[in-house]
């Protein structure tokens, strides 16, 4: 396993005071807390910061860690000294969001420590929260998804391990971004085999066509200038399959049309909003160029008539 430099993780010197440790931890916790942060590696970073704080803020654990000496480099191959991990340490709280476990390094040093006064760890820590990414289609149709999660587990000796768990979970139809699903008894396993609950927070993987806003689904639909000008019936993809949409004559780019009830299912179901985007054909042949010139002549159209100012006037 690899040595972890907890001082470096918190960005503090080895002789940092308790107050310095707390300040450094709070600052990094605000930055990387998975409930607050949108940093891509927030969960992993928070876990690391939390672990460093768990060790350094407690004089007993800090002393045990310091006894390893200061000659180690972060990431260096580390073999725990004999007797490490056999003491019982007190833990105040455990990670919940963020993978829900400590590193191998931590477990080797302190893994034996959940017995004395660790009621909060046994109970609270065993409830787990995990974010799961599903497709919008999964929400539309419902159905089951297989997930792999790392789950903390206390063995009979009160030692903390993490175990990879595979679950097949029913995705409720119409679930929206940020909603949670509570799976009773599927969290980490505490003392005496008592299991906590697992909370799955839904996130949608970015979709090629759609963006969800609650149950509403938004998309941009390219249309030709003549479809927008003259009106047309066009085929529009929806989560439930293509539907016909009437583009009203005289539509401009950015016009928003609503397909009622074509969003995510529910009561009421969401709507699909279609934003028109006029796309010009390439004027790369003589015939198309002539057609545009003809249009320019007969339409006598100045799109900047209303936006012209004295300052910007060129002729």
């Amino acid at each position: 396993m690899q040595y972890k430099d907890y001082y470096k993780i918190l960005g503090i010197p080895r002789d940092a005071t308790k107050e310095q440790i707390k300040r450094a931890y709070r600052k990094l916790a605000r930055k990387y807390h998975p409930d607050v942060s949108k940093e891509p590696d927030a969960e992993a970073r928070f876990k690391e910061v939390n672990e460093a704080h768990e060790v350094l803020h407690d004089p007993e654990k800090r002393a045990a860690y310091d006894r390893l000496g200061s000659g180690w480099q972060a990431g260096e191959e580390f073999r725990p000294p004999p007797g490490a991990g056999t003491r019982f340490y007190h833990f105040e709280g455990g990670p919940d969001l963020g993978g829900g476990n400590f590193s191998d390094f931590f477990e080797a040093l302190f893994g034996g420590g959940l017995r004395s006064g660790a009621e909060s760890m046994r109970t609270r820590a065993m409830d787990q929260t995990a974010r799961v990414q599903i497709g919008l289609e999964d929400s539309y149709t419902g159905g089951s998804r297989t997930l792999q999660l790392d789950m903390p587990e206390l063995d009979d000796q009160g030692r903390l391990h993490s175990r990879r768990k595979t679950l097949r979970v029913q995705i409720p139809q119409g679930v929206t971004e940020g909603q949670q699903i509570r799976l009773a008894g599927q969290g980490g396993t505490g003392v005496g085999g008592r299991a906590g609950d697992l909370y799955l927070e839904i996130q949608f993987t970015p979709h090629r066509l759609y963006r969800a806003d609650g149950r509403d689904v938004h998309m941009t639909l390219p249309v030709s200038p003549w479809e927008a000008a003259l009106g047309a019936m066009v085929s529009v993809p929806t989560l439930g399959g293509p539907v016909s949409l009437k583009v009203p004559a005289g539509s401009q780019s950015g016009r928003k049309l609503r397909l009622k009830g074509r969003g995510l299912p529910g009561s009421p179901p969401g709507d699909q909003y279609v934003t028109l985007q006029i796309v010009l054909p390439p004027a790369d042949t003589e015939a198309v160029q002539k057609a545009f010139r003809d249009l320019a002549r007969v339409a006598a159209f100045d799109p900047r008539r209303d936006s012209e100012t004295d300052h910007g006037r060129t002729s």
Partner: protein
Amino acid sequence: MAGPLEIIHGVLLDERTWLDAQELRSLCRLSPESLTEMVEEGLLRPIGAMPQHWRFPSSDLARLRRAIRLQRDLGVNPAGAALALDLIEEVERLRARLRILEREMLGNS
């Protein structure tokens, strides 16, 4: 592993399922005093005037657990957690709107 996995059905925490104060407290292992404080700080908005009549939409469970994590990990008090939660939710709404608007501005290209 033997055979296909059994499909687990969870409970969707939305506005259609309701919890009473006792259920909410036991799921979060929270004292009656702490729950009352969370309600007084506006962190949770139950229907029902008296604590024994309180009913919470189950989406409040996710909100409450988040508030508890913020208090534990960031050292904020319930009022601070309530403020942070409101702001986080507002940011999430704005981010969702921004994603849609960016898509509309840039088109599908």
